């Protein structure tokens, strides 16, 4: 049997239904079994693969594991891995589809916010491993004339993602992160949603709460819209929006990688509304 066939069959045995092995005469002919059965030997590999990938997901999705418990998480992870094995060897970015998978998982319907907290974990993980970069200096603003401002475009930091949810995901995340052993306050998931940006200014991933208008303006800007057009839309729904305060805050936070005149940047946006629909 050719190497390619052996590897395809082996892969199938690792990710497929365990009983499939017994019907596969080809595979049984490939191996020496000795005193320990073929199934037991293959099961060493199967367990190793599934557990290692489950551990990868647990590192990326710590809030999900905390909320669901180890046993539930293992069961969900194994099911996910079989359906969505990694496509490459970079495990830092494995599991993008896990939030959507959890959102559709029948057994998880009792936790309606599970998909959103998973997406929060995923975005935090992406920010953690994003390329290093530096914020644009506020000095750049003095190089523009007042007439230029309407035509400015804003590029976000490589690690920056916008996030929104109808649930208080920040509080749910903090609840999950509480390892102090203290009795945590009960969660009130009806208290309202959040608008946030998640990014890594230097080494640590941070989150910043945003107003709805602030979130929308950043969303428009990071879609490549020039400042004038984007701001006009925000002012329609929020006439009191203070652009100077917005700009001052985000220059201070280091939100932008670059600000340029008359260039279009690609969209960089993730939210529960659009990513996982």
């Amino acid at each position, binding site marked *: 049997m050719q190497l390619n066939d052996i590897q395809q069959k082996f892969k199938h045995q690792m990710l497929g239904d365990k009983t499939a092995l017994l019907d596969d005469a080809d595979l049984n002919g490939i*191996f*020496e079994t000795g005193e320990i059965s073929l199934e*037991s030997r293959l099961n060493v590999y199967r367990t190793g693969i599934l557990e290692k990938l489950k551990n990868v997901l647990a590192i990326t999705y710590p809030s999900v594991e905390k909320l669901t418990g180890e046993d539930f998480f293992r069961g969900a992870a194994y099911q996910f891995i079989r359906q969505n094995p990694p496509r490459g060897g970079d495990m830092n970015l494995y599991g993008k589809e896990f939030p959507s998978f959890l959102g559709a998982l029948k057994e998880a319907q009792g936790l309606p916010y599970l998909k959103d907290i998973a997406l929060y974990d995923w975005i935090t993980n992406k920010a953690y491993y994003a390329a290093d970069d530096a914020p644009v200096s506020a000095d750049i603003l003095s190089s523009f004339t007042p007439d230029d401002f309407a035509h400015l475009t804003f590029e976000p930091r490589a690690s920056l993602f916008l996030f929104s949810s109808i649930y208080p995901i920040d509080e749910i995340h903090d609840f999950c992160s509480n390892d102090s052993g203290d009795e945590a306050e009960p969660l009130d998931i009806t208290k309202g949603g959040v608008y946030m940006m998640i990014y890594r200014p230097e080494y640590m991933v941070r989150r910043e709460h945003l107003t709805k208008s602030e979130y929308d303006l950043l969303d428009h800007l990071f879609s490549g819209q020039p400042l004038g057009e984007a701001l006009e839309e925000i002012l329609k729904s929020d006439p009191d929006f203070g652009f100077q305060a917005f700009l001052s805050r985000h220059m201070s936070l280091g939100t932008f990688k670059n600000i340029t005149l008359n260039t279009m940047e690609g969209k960089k946006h993730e939210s529960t509304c659009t990513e996982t629909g």
Partner: protein
Amino acid sequence: MEKPGAYNTRPDLPDPVGIGLRHAHYADIPKERPDVGWLEVHPENYFGGGINRHHLEKSRELYEMSFHAVGLSLGSADGIDLDHLQKIKELIEIYQPFQFSDHASWSASGNAHLNDLLPLPYTEETLSKLCENVDRAQDYLGMQILVENPSTYIDFADNEMNEQNFMNEAAKRTGCKILLDINNIYVQAHNHGHDPYKYINDITPKYVGEMHLAGYTEQPVEDKTILIDTHSKPVHDPVWDLYAHAVGHIGETPTLIEWDEELPPLSTLVQEAHRARRVMTDVLRVAYAAE
């Protein structure tokens, strides 16, 4: 025909024993500056940016480094992933490891990468494919690489050669070196009923560029025991004995203490490294005295 190691860039190390740089010891290593010759890292942990690279830089300022990859899938019939190779190349250019290695195993088939070191049948077809992938990696990276013998829990019915000859032949044909994992030899000798000392004796000494030592776990299966290469324990005594035999056969060789799960305090890793150094020194002293 034997291919010379065209890219042999390894400098003489002042101290042949090394330990792994792992997340749990990021802060301890620059602070304690353990008495070891070099550090080993999995380059895949440093893909992307962020704080991991910051810690890598801090340690690189203090130590020579080897890169030990786990994701190239050198034994894949599909070939190797150039995107993965490019990410490794970028890290090599930045951190200048003294050597780079991966495994004589496979992880990827079709559209799935199984994130494990899976066994190969030792056939001429597999050898050709592995050599093709090794050649490609060496040419792309512009350096000699090392290929490690794997731990296996299953044997193939149609093997055309034993593993040690497979490894020798891969080194001969590609100019790569063998990373001889002593624990893996012991583990699979137990699992398949082979003689680990014969395995070592069959290895051509000049091909070996590094050795690994690690601890295995015993797993009961059907009233028998399979040894699993978990990297979660101290090196077992029979593996130390086998290591002494390997040093006697091969000579002074950079040696790594591997420990990836249930990590102990840094001092424990260093003690294991010092034991490796003592074993190597003792064996070589006896060998020189006999000459």
